[in-house]
């Protein structure tokens, strides 16, 4: 792969990291909780492995260094926008250096279950300076593609409020089918109850994402569509990067 013309870092990089030979591809899947990211990613992984590609996945808050700290801090509900953002930044830095760069060097396809854009949206919606959060993530690698699974609030609600253990569940950290305290923006007191808060919070997050989709040129897929339709679109995008069509032969 020719990386000579490619922008490697999002901003100010990691001066001490060797990123000269990243032969893999970094593919980012963005979208809110309940949109079906994990199911899509699991299927994409299978499909890519059948095609013979080495695949690894990474996701927010999964670094061994930080995952306990993040869970504990979130359970305490004492975070502000800076501590919240910086905890995730530490998690991200740990994964960039210990997972993502090594995997890309080894030629793997890295499927990132959310990336810096979620962090940007969360921080901005909570009142942080847009330039601050972007500068903080300066050492992030520029992805090869960002697929944004977009969904409107009307389609999202029946997907997240569908669990029997809702009453207890929303206090926990994110798990499928349950509204999470932070994903409802409850820390911001946006509404009297978590439902109102969720609706307002998700609207703001979606507005941020729509603006970023323009700014950064995301591939937007309509995630309210059937699983198969969404899946096909995602596969097409990924194929366009892994196996770009050969330039058409000149007419004889």
């Amino acid at each position: 792969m020719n990386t000579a013309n490619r922008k490697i870092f999002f901003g100010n990089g990691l001066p001490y990291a060797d990123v000269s030979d990243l032969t893999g591809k970094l593919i980012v899947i963005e979208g809110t909780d309940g949109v079906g990211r994990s199911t899509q990613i699991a299927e994409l992984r299978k499909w890519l492995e059948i095609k013979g590609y080495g695949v690894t996945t990474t996701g927010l808050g999964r670094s061994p260094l930080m995952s306990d700290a993040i869970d504990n801090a979130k359970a305490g509900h004492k975070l502000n926008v800076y501590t919240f953002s910086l905890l995730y930044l530490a998690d991200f830095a740990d994964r960039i250096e210990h997972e993502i760069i090594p995997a890309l060097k080894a030629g793997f396809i890295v499927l990132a279950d959310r990336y810096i854009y979620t962090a940007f949206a969360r921080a901005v919606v909570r009142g942080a300076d847009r330039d601050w959060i972007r500068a903080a993530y300066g050492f992030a690698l520029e992805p090869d593609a960002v697929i944004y699974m977009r969904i409107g609030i009307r389609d999202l609600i029946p997907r997240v409020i569908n669990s029997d253990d809702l009453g207890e569940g929303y206090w926990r950290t994110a798990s499928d089918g349950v509204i999470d305290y932070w994903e409802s923006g409850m820390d911001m007191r946006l509404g009297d109850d978590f439902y109102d808060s969720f609706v307002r919070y998700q609207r703001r997050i979606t507005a941020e994402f729509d603006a970023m989709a323009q700014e950064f040129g995301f591939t937007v897929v309509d995630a309210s569509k059937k699983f198969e339709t969404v899946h096909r679109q995602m596969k097409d995008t990924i194929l366009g990067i892994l196996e770009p069509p050969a330039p058409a032969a000149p007419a004889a």
Partner: protein
Amino acid sequence: MTRRFEEPHPYPGRLIIVEGIDGSGKSTQLQLLHKWFKGMNQRVFFTEWNSSALINETVKRGKKKNLLTPSTFSILHAVDFADRLAHLIIPPLKAGMVVLADRYIYTAFARDVVRGVDRDWVRDLYGMAVRPNIAFYFHVPIEVSLKRILTGRVALKFHEAGMDLGLSDDPRESYRIFQGRIIDEYGRIAQEYGMTVVDGTKSIPEQQRLVREIVAEQMKDFQPAPMLR
């Protein structure tokens, strides 16, 4: 981007911070200043680098198992700082009180850059920090700091000697190289941010006299009054 610490803070309180390498005597000087304020019945708060409960288990574990990279080391200290800023620094400043900080953002600017992070990046990371009213930098030569540290204990700590950077297998030699680079970086920072440089080789009472003089001069118009709006 806007770095808040590039402008004076808008709060009625006063923030006084000390910086310097390990063994520079900065903590001793700050403690004496603390006693002085208390002796005058001034309401005064104290906060210390790397002391927030939010993250110190992670930092400890990370250091012990050598899991930290220059970036994660830097960001974890920023988490600690942001937590203390929101809970221990800004509220008393708003209430018109005096806050004393043992190490501040300049520790990160000096140390993390020597560890290898980008100079602008770390300044942006701390963009939410308020600017101190008075910032003292206690300057000592390496050998003085080394001697002072080793009078209290037998060995140097792994991270204070910069052993994670692979500069030398000998902890003392590594300490000299690592802390020497930090001193160079502090020198630049003291200029950049107009810090008050104190000669840390002078006697303790001599330094404290100078520190109190400067603080008294800078605070002569200070009226403790809470911000109300």
